[in-house]
């Protein structure tokens, strides 16, 4: 207790010590005076007798109170004093650290929000997303209705199994206006599984048909004025609000939940399934059971058997929201970890250089009695102080990075998750900062503790030739740094190359000089086939007259856009002819496929005579024909379209495949029909969900054509605005937006790494040159040409870099192979294609290395031997 009090009474104890020492000295001096010495001699003798007062005080300090705590404070105070003496060193270290920590914290904030944080529902650890996964790959949380029903009715592991799908926008038709609302269809047990009770009303029931709705609290309060009894007309169907969610229901984009009515059919993988595990059932048990059910179902009813290694895994609920992000986030986490490593290496280098410069100071302190441990601790205190400040800088930078990330992101990630830097993120940032400070502060601390005072003082801080101490560590650090940046540069290069390859995949149509004027035809003005056809015919007539226009057509979905997912029965199919089959549905004006120059493989294109009154026809894609009618000539066969209603159509032609909304996924069976022959129901659905496009091909680059198109269409129908103009290029960019985002982000980080590594190399090289300035001066004085010495330094730098390049290149190659197996959709390493990537990136790095070594090398040429030799 007294000791603790002493901590606060420190200064009074300190002054008492001084008092006692002064008295003791005075008495000693008086004693020697009495013995007949002169005043001066007496003081001298007394001092010799007494010894170093500071050392005595030090001993005394250690005798009382908590030495470690006081020392810690003393260390930190000294560290602050020391660091204030070297502001530029400090600034560089803090910025370096801040960049590393900031990048990591920003990405970690995303990881935390998307992958780590528990879903905000009761007992979230029992809530699991079901995902289909192949061995060692990340799962996809999508099932068809048949599979969901199987899990719901047969599995015994879950208290509830629920499903959701069709997340999107709908038109909320009010008597006087229409508003866009965000809806999602959910199965009856959705809210029960989540453990959420509606604040008013009830959950959906199993038998519920489409006419009910449950709304969020904010929708109910703000947009329905707190009245539950008004029916909602959503795109023509009237829904009665049966429940209102509690106010604390986690906010998502969805405002209205509609019941999901399911028929147990193989309707394509578009249903997300999750479940609440029964008490005491493990996720592994549930996964095993579901895997068994999946395969049993497939064996009994499915033609296309899933691969035997496909299984069902249980992921935390909500992780499927981040499913497109898990891979990029894992990748990005790795990338920023490498950045942090490079930053750390730089920091260690900086501290090491500083420790060597301060070697003499350290030696003097050692010879004055400072213990080796004490000195090491002092260095450590400095590095921890620095990294603590770096951590704070990192938090600030992370906020900035995060803002940039959200801005650059192709999807509104800040709407999908609540991105906040919570306590976990805060702890993470400070944690990595201090941990790295400790780790990399140990290197210089260790060398400081090891140095021999005699040697250091003799050397006087500037050796005649470069010594060994510390420099091997330093070289290793440079090599590591170069290797790390090679890994990052090559990885970003391969990502970019994969992206370029992806961008170069042909869509299947002729994209040159094509412009799409897109319109949203929501509402009742164009909700029948007849109304739409009339509008399109008139529009095409007008647009065709614009000079320089080669062809004009209309479609519900352009190449690289998604169409409607629908079903079809193919009676002539050898594979379960009576079953509904999945296909992508698009309406077109008769001339669309011709105008888009989609190659005709068989039969004919539509003609103007394929009108509403003529026999119903369809054109199918090559994949459609090959998958559903293998070995048969599709032309002349009948199929039954199941999109809303049933329509029997005759296939009149087969066209080449055109890529839909993803460039890299499998080709999807596609069916085109003339818009005049579409059912009113599906026209309405198509116009509700997607904008349609006027496709215009011009004879040349089509300068200024957009304004003319807009003028024509406005004069045709002043009430129908054009939403936007798109070229095929923009569709393409849109189709690869996630890949683009990732590739650009990784490239940005790679550039950051390159800058950090060059700065590190520059620091080390200029340090080495300074260390050897005496040697260079002597050699210059003896007549060595400066240029040769400079080249020597360049060679030394390049030598270090080359080793790093080789290690980094090998590491990058194996890392990429591993990443390629982990994230096949993101990284696609093909060594033969990537060889130039490696070359370019390594060339880039060598250039940076040369630049970093150039300045120190040139400094040699400016050395004046006389001056250097005289100075030392």
């Amino acid at each position, binding site marked *: 207790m007294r000791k603790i009090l002493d901590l606060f009474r420190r200064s009074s104890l300190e002054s*008492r010590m001084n008092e006692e*020492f002064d*008295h*003791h000295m*005075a008495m*000693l001096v008086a004693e020697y005076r009495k013995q007949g010495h002169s005043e001066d001699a007496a003081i001298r003798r007394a001092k010799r007798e007494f010894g170093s007062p500071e050392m*005595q005080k030090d*001993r005394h300090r250690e*005798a*009382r109170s908590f030495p470690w705590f006081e020392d810690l404070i003393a260390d930190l105070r000294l560290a602050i004093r020391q660091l204030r003496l070297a502001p530029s060193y400090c600034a560089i270290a803090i910025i370096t650290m801040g960049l590393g920590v900031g990048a990591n914290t920003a990405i970690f904030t995303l990881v935390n929000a998307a992958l780590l944080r528990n879903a905000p529902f009761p007992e979230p650890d029992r809530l699991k997303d079901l995902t289909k996964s192949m061995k060692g790959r990340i799962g996809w949380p999508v099932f068809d209705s048949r599979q969901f029903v199987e899990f719901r009715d047969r599995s015994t592991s879950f208290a509830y199994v629920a499903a959701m799908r069709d997340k999107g926008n709908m038109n909320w038709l009010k008597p006087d206006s229409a508003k866009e609302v965000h809806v999602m269809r959910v199965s009856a047990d959705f809210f029960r599984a989540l453990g959420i009770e509606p604040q008013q009303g009830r959950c959906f029931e199993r038998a519920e048909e489409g006419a009910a709705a449950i709304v969020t609290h904010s929708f109910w309060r703000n947009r329905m004025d707190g009245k539950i009894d008004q029916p909602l007309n959503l795109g023509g169907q009237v829904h009665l609000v049966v429940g209102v969610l509690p106010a604390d229901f986690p906010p998502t984009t969805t405002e209205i939940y509609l019941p999901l009515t399911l028929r147990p059919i193989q309707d394509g993988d578009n249903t997300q399934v999750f479940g609440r595990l029964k008490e005491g059932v493990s996720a592994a048990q549930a996964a095993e059971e579901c895997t068994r059910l999946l395969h049993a179902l497939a064996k009994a009813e499915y033609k296309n058997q899933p691969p035997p290694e496909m299984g069902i895994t249980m992921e935390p609920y909500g992780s499927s929201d981040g499913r497109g992000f898990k891979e990029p986030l894992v990748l990005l986490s790795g990338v920023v970890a490498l950045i942090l490593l490079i930053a750390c290496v730089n920091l260690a280098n900086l501290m090491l250089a500083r420790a060597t410069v301060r070697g003499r100071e350290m030696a003097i302190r050692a010879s004055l009695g400072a213990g080796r441990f004490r000195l090491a601790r002092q260095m450590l205190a400095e590095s921890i102080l620095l990294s603590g400040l770096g951590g704070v800088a990192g938090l600030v930078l992370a906020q900035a990075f995060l803002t940039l990330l959200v801005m650059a992101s192709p999807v509104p990630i800040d709407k999908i998750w609540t991105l906040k830097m919570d306590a976990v993120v805060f702890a993470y940032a400070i944690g990595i900062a201090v941990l790295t400070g400790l780790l990399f502060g140990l290197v210089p601390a260790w060398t400081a503790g090891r140095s021999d005072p005699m040697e250091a003082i003799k050397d006087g801080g500037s050796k005649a030739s470069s010594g060994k101490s510390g420099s091997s560590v330093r070289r290793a650090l440079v090599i590591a740094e170069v290797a790390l940046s090679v890994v990052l540069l090559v990885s970003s290069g391969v990502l970019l190359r994969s992206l370029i390859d992806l961008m170069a995949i042909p869509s299947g149509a002729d994209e040159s000089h094509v412009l799409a004027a897109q319109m949203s035809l929501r509402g009742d003005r164009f909700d029948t086939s007849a109304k739409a056809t009339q509008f399109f015919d008139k529009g095409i007539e007008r647009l065709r007259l614009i000079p320089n226009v080669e062809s004009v057509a209309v479609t519900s979905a352009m190449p690289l856009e998604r169409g409607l997912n629908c079903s079809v029965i193919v009676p002539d199919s050898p594979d379960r002819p009576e079953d509904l089959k999945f296909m992508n549905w698009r309406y077109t004006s008769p001339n669309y496929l011709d105008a888009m120059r989609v190659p005709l493989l068989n039969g004919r294109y539509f003609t103007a005579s394929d009108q509403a009154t003529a026999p119903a026809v369809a054109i199918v894609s090559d994949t459609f024909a090959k998958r559903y009618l293998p070995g048969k000539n599709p032309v002349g066969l009948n199929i039954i379209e199941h999109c809303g209603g049933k329509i029997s159509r005759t296939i009149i032609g087969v066209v080449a495949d055109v890529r839909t909304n993803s460039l890299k996924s499998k080709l999807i069976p596609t069916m085109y029909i003339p818009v005049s022959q579409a059912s009113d129901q599906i026209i309405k659905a198509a116009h509700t969900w997607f904008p349609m496009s006027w496709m215009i091909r011009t004879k040349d680059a089509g300068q200024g054509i957009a304004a003319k198109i807009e003028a024509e269409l406005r004069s045709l129908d002043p009430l129908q605005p054009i939403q936007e103009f798109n070229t095929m290029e923009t569709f393409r960019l849109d189709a690869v937006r996630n890949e683009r985002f990732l590739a650009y982000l990784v490239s940005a980080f790679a550039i950051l790494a390159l800058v950090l590594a060059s700065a590190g190399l520059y620091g080390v090289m200029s340090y080495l040159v300074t260390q050897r300035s005496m040697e260079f001066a002597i050699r210059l004085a003896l007549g060595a040409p400066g240029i040769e010495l400079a080249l020597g330094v360049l060679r030394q730098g390049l030598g270090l870099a080359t080793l790093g390049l080789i290690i980094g290149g090998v590491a990058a190659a194996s890392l990429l192979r591993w990443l390629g197996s982990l994230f096949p959709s993101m990284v696609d390493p093909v060594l033969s294609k990537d060889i130039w990537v490696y070359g370019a990136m390594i060339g880039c790095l060598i250039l940076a290395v040369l630049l970093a070594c150039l300045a120190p090398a040139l400094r040699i040429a400016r050395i004046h031997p006389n001056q250097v030799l005289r100075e030392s």
Partner: protein
Amino acid sequence: MKTRQEILQGTLDLIVLKTLDSLGPQHGYGIAQRVQQVSDGLLFLNQGTLYPALIRLEQKGWLSSEYGPSDNNRKARFYSLTRQGKKQLLAELEQWELTVSLMSRLLEAK
């Protein structure tokens, strides 16, 4: 030149307590002088050892201190034994006797 003796581990407290017991209130320098005198200059109390020890003993409540004038009229801090200190001295003396007799028996044993 006589070689100075290092003080035996753990005996510093006893030396200080005993000295103050026989001298009465004394300042640090006086204690150091006295020890050197009595030991014929063989035992030298380092200032860096002595003063911390004095403070420590005071913290334990065995010594009290107050200012008083020293020989040549300087202000100095005089230390004196407290009652607790006297008790401690007796206890330590007893302990010392025990140690000495133990040591001599051990060393004389053939």
